[in-house]
């Protein structure tokens, strides 16, 4: 009887529920990550060292990729956050039609990346819809009269910083709603009486917003910021879809570029792995920050 009960206990152990997940992550996540780490520190001949990172530093596009990634991540973060906060506050006022407005602005968030690629490619080409819109709406004429533009703009002919800016704007169009909705959730959970109390006790609307609303919804704001930071640092697809490989290099774009070239070039394998260390580094940093913030949030809610 005792034996049987013991067996039954093992079968019923709650830890068994975790076994499939652990196995899955061991095989399909831990092994590739460890391999990637190992490969990045060994040469093709098997020698351990920092050779691959030297290769990366010698990559003619490394510096561009590094700078572009940084600019993109920080500027898009700023722009998206400012817009998202403004729009979240707007939607939260529950004006007539705010539900419909929310529905409309959430649409870009739902679009698959390759559809976004098609959408903006059809826009950026010379006879594309962006120039069409400028022409039919008369904005083109105004800008030409002001001397800002001369004839249809060649959006795709830009490079360097201008291309990064174009990508920032397009990225903002796409992901601003996902930042906004996190902040909005924070605002909707916010007890209005906190704000009213501040106003009663002598704060102006702006003071109440700055001293009470923002600090109280801070966890939502930081969550949104960190999530955007991480996806900003991982940008590549939109750049490749609009400008192709190598033209607007980003760090993750380098990984994909070298991964895709594995079949033809010998060093690519090592290059891709060495670039991957960068993602490892930033993911752990941001995850660490994120956990600290969400921990505060939990303690605050006690």
């Amino acid at each position, binding site marked *: 009887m005792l034996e049987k009960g013991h067996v039954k206990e093992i079968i019923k152990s709650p830890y068994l529920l975790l076994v499939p997940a652990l196995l899955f992550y061991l095989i399909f996540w831990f092994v590739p990550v460890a391999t990637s780490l190992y490969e990045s520190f060994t040469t093709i001949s098997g020698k351990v060292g920092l050779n691959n990172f030297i290769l990366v530093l010698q990559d003619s596009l490394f510096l561009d990729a590094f700078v572009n990634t940084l600019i993109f991540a920080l500027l898009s973060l700023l722009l998206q956050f400012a817009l998202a906060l403004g729009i979240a506050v707007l939607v939260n006022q529950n004006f007539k039609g705010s539900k419909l407005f929310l529905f409309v602005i959430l649409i870009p968030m739902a679009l698959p990346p390759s559809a976004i690629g098609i959408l903006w490619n059809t826009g950026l080409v010379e006879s594309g819809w962006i120039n069409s819109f400028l022409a039919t709406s008369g904005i083109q004429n105004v800008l030409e009269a002001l001397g800002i533009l001369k004839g249809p703009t060649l959006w795709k002919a830009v490079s360097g910083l201008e291309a990064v800016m174009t990508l920032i704007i397009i990225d903002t169009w796409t992901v601003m709603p996902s930042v906004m909705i996190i902040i909005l959730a924070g605002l909707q959970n916010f*007890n209005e*009486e*906190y704000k*009213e*109390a*501040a*106003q*009663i*006790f*002598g*704060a*102006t609307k702006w*003071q109440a917003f700055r*001293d*009470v609303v923002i*600090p*109280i919804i*801070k966890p939502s704001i930081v969550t949104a910021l960190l999530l955007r930071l991480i996806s900003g640092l991982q940008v590549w697809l939109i750049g490749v879809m609009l400008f192709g490989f190598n033209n607007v290099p980003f760090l993750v774009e380098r990984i994909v570029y070298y991964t895709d070239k594995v079949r033809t070039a010998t060093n690519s394998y090592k290059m891709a792995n060495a670039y991957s260390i960068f993602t490892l580094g930033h993911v752990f940093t941001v995850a660490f920050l994120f956990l600290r913030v969400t921990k505060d949030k939990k*303690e*605050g*809610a*006690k």
Partner: protein
Amino acid sequence: MSYLKLENVKKVYNNKVTAVDNFNLEIEKGEFIAFLGPSGCGKTTTLRMIAGLESVTHGDITLEGKSIVGLTPRERGISMIFQSYAVWPHMTVYENVAYALKLRKLKKADIDEVVQDVAKTTDIVQYLNRYPSQLSGGQRQRVAVARAIAVKPKLFLMDEPLSNLDAKLRVSMRTDLKRIHQNVKSTSIFVTHDQSEALSLADRIVVMNHGVIEQIGTANEIYHESETMFIAKFIGSPASNFFVVNVILEDGEVYLVHDDFKVQFNGQEKDVLIKNYLDKSVVLSIRPENFTVNKGGFIKAKAKIIEPQGSHIIINTDIGGEEIKIVSDLLELESGENILLGFNDKVLLFDSETEKRIK
């Protein structure tokens, strides 16, 4: 001239729903007023209009003779305790109390003095450096009170401040609020749906229902001279009992006739009854404690259920199909016994159409 005056105040939401209508009230300096009524009666809306958190659709509110309609909350010189206390979670207790003073650009030393002073009054000195999340509900409540009295407001508003506390704490906070009010002598308005809070705290009570004032008066006036059937029903626990009776005149005497009893009426309303209500039906309202049991009565009934309360009992019976509750000190009475009921002269009569008291 009265300190705070509300004249014909009206609030309409979205051009459709009238939340408050025809609200007239004058409050003297230092008075403690309670707005009492069931949920949705407009009491909180009225308070928020005084606070400036809701706009006034129509009418005027004057404080110290000056209209405050159109002023922002911060310009009104008031303070408020919220139902959720709204003690800011990201500030320490000290910062919570000091925030309003900082906004008033007081010197650091002065702020400190005021904070320490009100902390003593409200008994929160030992919590000043804690965050609200580290405090119990009752302690947060005290912080809210401290914050509110620190600014020396012209008007002290409270929106159901005790409703989130458990029953025992509620009673002791009630006493504290009364004590603080007596110390500070601030003019206060207190919104509640709990009649015992209103009756025990307020100098005068404003009873509201469906957005209009039913009666303004002291606890005694409201209880014993209820102006409307609504108040007789709403105030008192158990509530008043009602009988529909016919008024007839026999041999120059007025009688109230019910299926189960017929009683001669000699109250002061007698002349009005003769003048306006002969051969008509009126509503007779009798408070549970105004019945006499087995002391020479004229209504035969049966004690169906007895609810002992320690000091007294509540007898449930029925007269002519109506559920009647009676408070009695016959502690030995058992359910099923036949009883003989009468009532004293503290009865009220209501017009069965308008539901207003006949007087």
